[in-house]
């Protein structure tokens, strides 16, 4: 296995650990960082140097893929602030899981007439998840935030399943 655990994406980009990063600024930073370590601008002195440059480029790409996606950014934020917090909050409220099961059934049964309404509803649920997540983080309640991230995964999966059908 050559895979090295990814370092904290926020540290790689040199941005503060916060959920609400300006996406334009983030992209500009990505472009600048990528340029800086592009092999064309980094004539490697020797073999080790060459590996270091490639490693840095890979880190920047990985971090970019994490930070540009709000939900992956949230996961990275939680793991950086409190390692293991996602794993220890996997037990979700049975009532929520019951609703998730019903949503999955609705997605499986969706047809031309209901797909549009269901897609809108799932988008609203995800927007509400994100708002609640931001509030949990503002209140410093990382356990609640971790549960929120897990809950959103069910809504994301339902939406992806719905899109895959049409």
């Amino acid at each position: 296995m050559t895979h090295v655990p990814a370092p904290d994406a926020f540290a790689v980009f040199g941005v503060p650990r916060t959920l609400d990063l300006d996406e334009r600024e983030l992209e500009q930073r990505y472009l600048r960082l990528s340029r800086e370590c592009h092999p064309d601008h980094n004539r490697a002195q020797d073999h080790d140097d060459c590996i270091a440059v490639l490693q840095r480029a890979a880190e920047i790409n990985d971090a970019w893929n994490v930070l540009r996606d709000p939900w992956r950014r949230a996961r990275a934020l939680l793991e950086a602030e409190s390692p293991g917090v996602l794993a220890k909050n996997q037990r979700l409220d049975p009532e929520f899981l019951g609703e998730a099961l019903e949503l999955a059934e609705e997605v499986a049964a969706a047809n031309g007439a209901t797909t549009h309404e269901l897609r809108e509803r799932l988008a609203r649920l995800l927007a509400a998840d994100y708002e609640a997540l931001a509030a949990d983080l503002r209140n410093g309640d990382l356990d609640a935030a971790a549960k929120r991230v897990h809950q959103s995964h069910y809504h994301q999966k339902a939406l992806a399943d719905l899109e895959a059908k049409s």
Partner: protein
Amino acid sequence: MAYSEKVLDHYQNPRNVGSLDKDAQDVGTGVVGAPECGDVMKLQIKVDDGGKIVDAKFKTYGCGSAIASSSLATEWLKGTTVDAAARIKNTQIVEELSLPPVKIHCSVLAEDAIKAAIDDWKRKNGKLPAGGEEQSS
């Protein structure tokens, strides 16, 4: 990775799919989930006065192994007692279905669902103080 024949059989012909009345006194309901893969499993038992499980139903949203694990669990639950059901271990499901290591969590989910359903039935019938179920952390 190939699914075992038993998994495929349960996946294609799941046993005991459906729901029981979750508000009925003699029905215990367990709903559990594995957030990382987005699986949800609902398992219900109907228990007679003698503590025997007379019916079991499940609904699972997830991969073939999760469906097979819960389908198999309902087969084992029907006709057994609550006490015996509480002793069902995920490793028995793994063995019966020949689940590969990456799918062991599906059997764990089924065991959790059985325990949650039993706890719910016990709570309804005064055999457990409210909120006093064991929390495996």
